[in-house]
């Protein structure tokens, strides 16, 4: 009987995530507010229904009443988060908000299935992270001088990354994180990727001279090298890809893009020759069976999980995702695919893609170079991370050991993702402010002209003063003026 419930839940969740994904792309095509709001309503329905179905299956299987409370607390969290965000930021992107909640609810279901105790801990961290990151849009919106701190971002980033050698604990063969008061561990590379993007954007904001590009590249390369030395290959790759793309978008120079890609390829070959751990990753990717019980074990277990689940999945608790090493964080995609199905996993990937597309479009909308590059840089970081994570789990590319944003277990990952999404929301709101102001000004102008015409008709003397606009030294503003 339990199994029928689990299977029914599986199919219902499949339908819900497909509907959700469709409405996400429907939203991206929609032009009118009304159409978008309808799509968002649909998304919220699907998200809450999926969350409920998942937890019903969990409650049915475990028979624990504590799960009911855990579920209800999560519902309260989602409602509070959605409502508060919209109260503080009326103009926020609803699509990104909904996607955030959807990815989190999938994560909560899977992590609870894998073990309630750690899921509760992760939930608490998530809630705190959500609260902290709530200020990110405000900072972006109000502090228009963020572009001035280029070298400070670089200093913070490099010091934080270096600190790893001093205080770190070695995890899975890499220096990744250090403990803070024994309470939780912090993984600097998760946060430095944000200061990294800010650094690059600041540098390119004021100049794109060869000298500036050279200096920036050197500092960026220093970031990457520290990461490689600490064996955090996934992060190193993300920083590299993000930098290359930011450089290209800023300069529009194919010379830099191709030259950078070539340099990266040479570096990759060198790394393969020099570092044993790089070689192992590549060999495991080429043929995991060579060392099936050693280095190949993790990827094989992931492939077994995905293959056994097939397109429809086994249903919650019907697979063996716990056999996959690190299934909670880096390999959660395989666990989701096994029990919720390959179709579900593809839909999850498409939801991530819709976030990414939203990031990229915000980047093209932004006027000033600084904001444009920040949006684009964060998009590149996010896109590369999702690609490297999922590609690695399914053995499309060598596994690099990074998390899937919003879905994987891990405090640093969740907080930094919240901050990234918060910054993007800030930019989105900034743009909405701009649009509103322009509309407002146009309205005023029209009114003034109408008035003027009236006066003229009436033969009154004197010309209306068009009025000084307040000039604020914001890059967005200046670009806007220029483009006019």
């Amino acid at each position, binding site marked *: *009987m339990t*199994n*029928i419930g689990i299977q029914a839940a599986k199919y219902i969740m499949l339908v819900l995530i497909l509907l959700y994904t469709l409405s996400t792309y429907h939203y991206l095509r929609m032009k009118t507010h009304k159409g978008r709001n309808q799509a968002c309503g649909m998304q919220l329905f699907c998200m809450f229904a999926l969350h409920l179905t998942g937890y019903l299956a969990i409650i049915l299987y475990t028979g624990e009443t504590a799960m009911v409370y855990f579920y209800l607390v999560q519902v309260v969290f989602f409602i509070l988060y959605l409502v508060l965000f919209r109260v503080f930021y009326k103009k926020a992107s609803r699509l990104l908000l909904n996607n955030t909640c959807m990815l989190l609810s999938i994560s909560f279901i899977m992590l609870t299935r894998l073990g309630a105790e750690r899921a509760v801990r992760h939930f608490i961290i998530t809630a705190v992270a959500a609260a902290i990151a709530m200020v990110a849009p405000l900072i972006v919106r109000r502090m228009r001088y963020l572009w001035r701190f280029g070298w400070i971002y670089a200093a913070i980033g490099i010091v934080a990354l270096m600190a790893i050698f001093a205080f770190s604990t070695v995890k899975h063969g890499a220096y990744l994180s250090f403990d803070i008061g024994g309470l939780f561990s912090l993984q600097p590379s998760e946060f430095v990727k944000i200061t990294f993007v800010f650094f690059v954007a600041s540098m390119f904001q004021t100049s794109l001279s060869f000298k500036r590009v050279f200096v920036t590249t050197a500092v960026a390369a220093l970031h990457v090298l520290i990461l490689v030395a600490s064996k955090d290959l996934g992060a190193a790759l993300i920083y590299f890809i993000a930098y290359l*793309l930011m450089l290209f*978008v800023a300069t529009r120079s194919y010379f830099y893009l191709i030259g950078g890609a070539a340099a990266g390829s040479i570096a990759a070959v060198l790394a393969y020759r020099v570092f044993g751990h790089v070689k192992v990753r590549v060999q495991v990717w080429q043929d995991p069976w060579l060392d*099936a*019980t050693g280095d190949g*074990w993790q990827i*094989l*277990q992931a*492939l*077994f*999980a*995905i*293959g*056994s689940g*097939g*397109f429809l999945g086994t249903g919650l608790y019907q*697979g*063996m995702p716990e*056999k996959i090493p690190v299934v909670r964080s880096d390999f959660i995609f395989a666990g989701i695919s096994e029990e919720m199905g*390959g179709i579900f*996993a*593809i839909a999850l*990937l*498409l939801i*991530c*893609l819709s976030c*990414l*597309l939203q990031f*990229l*479009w915000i*980047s093209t909308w932004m006027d000033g170079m600084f904001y444009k590059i920040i949006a*684009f840089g964060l*998009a*590149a970081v996010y*896109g590369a991370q*999702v*690609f490297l994570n*999922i*590609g690695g789990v*399914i*053995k*499309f590319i060598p596994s690099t050991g990074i998390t899937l944003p919003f879905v994987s277990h891990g405090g640093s990952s969740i907080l930094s993702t919240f901050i990234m999404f918060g910054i993007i929301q800030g930019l989105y709101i900034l743009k909405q402010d701009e649009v509103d102001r322009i509309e407002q000004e146009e309205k005023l102008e029209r009114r003034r002209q109408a008035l003027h015409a009236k006066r003229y008709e009436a033969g009154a003397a004197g010309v209306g003063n068009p009025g000084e606009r307040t000039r604020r030294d914001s890059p967005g503003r200046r670009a806007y003026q220029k483009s006019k």
Partner: protein
Amino acid sequence: MASVFFTLMFLSVIGYFCWYLVVKSEDTIDSSYNARLDTFSTRVVRGEIRGKNGEVLARTVEDGEGNETREYPYSNLFAHVAGYSDAGTTGLEAAANQYLLSTHLSLLEQVDNEMKEVKNPGDNVVTTLDPYLQQLAYDALGDYNGACVIMEPGTGKILAMVSRPDFDPNTVAADWEYLISEENEEANLLNRATQGLYPPGSTFKLLTTLEYIRENPENWGNYQYECEGSMKYGDSVMSCYEGHVHGVLDLRLSLANSCNTSFATIGGTLDLDKFHSLCESFLFNQALPLPEAMEYRQSSFVLDGNSGLSERVQTAIGQGRTMISPLHNAMIVSAIANGGTLMSPYVMERVESADGKVVKQFMPESAGKLLSASEAETLTDFMVAVVNEGTSPSLQSDSYQVAGKTGSAEFNSNKEDSHAWFVGFAPAKNPEIVVSIIYENGGTGGSVATKGAKKIFEGYFSR
């Protein structure tokens, strides 16, 4: 542009993911490192292995208390090919493991079973094996150790595969200690048909003949040799079977009479590197095109341009260091019988759900053309001569024509200690079955093997 770039990257991930799920995953997950496979049996009752007409070769029965036992109604008869699942898994039990433990019952019935809290029945695997022929082959081997393979040359279907000595799969777990103990020197668990390697003896003269034909495409018809019963080469003497003096022979009669001295002479003329590559094209030293899960040992052929005279002469008549499995010998003859094309052997015909729906159908597959149609025709003609004019007159029959070749494989210096081979097919025109049979210690001249083959052909054509 960046949107397009990232969208393409993500779509390529999705593409690979789907490719993995559709094409690759089935083979990947069927691994002993996959703990999931063990738990399937807690939810599914292992399906049946069936003969070609639905005969039950293996089934799982439950007593009233939910205890399951695997039963093999034919006991020892299918021991190696069907395998067992009580002490590890072997044979078809291993190869078809995943099918037997999956269920494709209609969703409604699955739900119904779920409600009644009974396990779903696994899928059944229908094989190409024919119990009638299996019994014929089994009886033909009699008390000898050895192996027999019967296959259909046009499709590659294996109709029978026997290896002796055998064991009873019903009690294999109980007999395990004895079967693997040192005092038991029989190696009952070994499937000699696929894993036993023997010198091919005179059956190998088929390939020596083919190589000679290829090296002398214009004038092999003019080949002539006068057999005096023995010949000297180096410091050794090569003699024909029981010192027979065959007189003047052409190539066809050389094979028909299995004349050692004639073939030793031919061996002396061959280009050994070419001979080596011919044998490799006939899958010596190569992986055989068998279903992935079938365990076998690779045949070997070591002669090449650097070999000495003695080895060259010995190899030409099928002695020397050449080794072959009975299944591989069947495959070579099968290619001759099928106009030159080798069909990959297979045992699994289809997978059916418990309510009879076909879940998966296995189709015959060509493994390539090993020899031309005219070469196949010539060799068939020679093999007919073996029966009608040569060493195996006892295989003559009014109702069918056999084409074949006998062999005795010496496995030590004592000539009396040899294995008896027969490989062949019938009818010579439009062949229906290929038989490859070997009797360990069957004695010289292959007469034991000919008698066994006779029983199989008689049985097959009188059905």
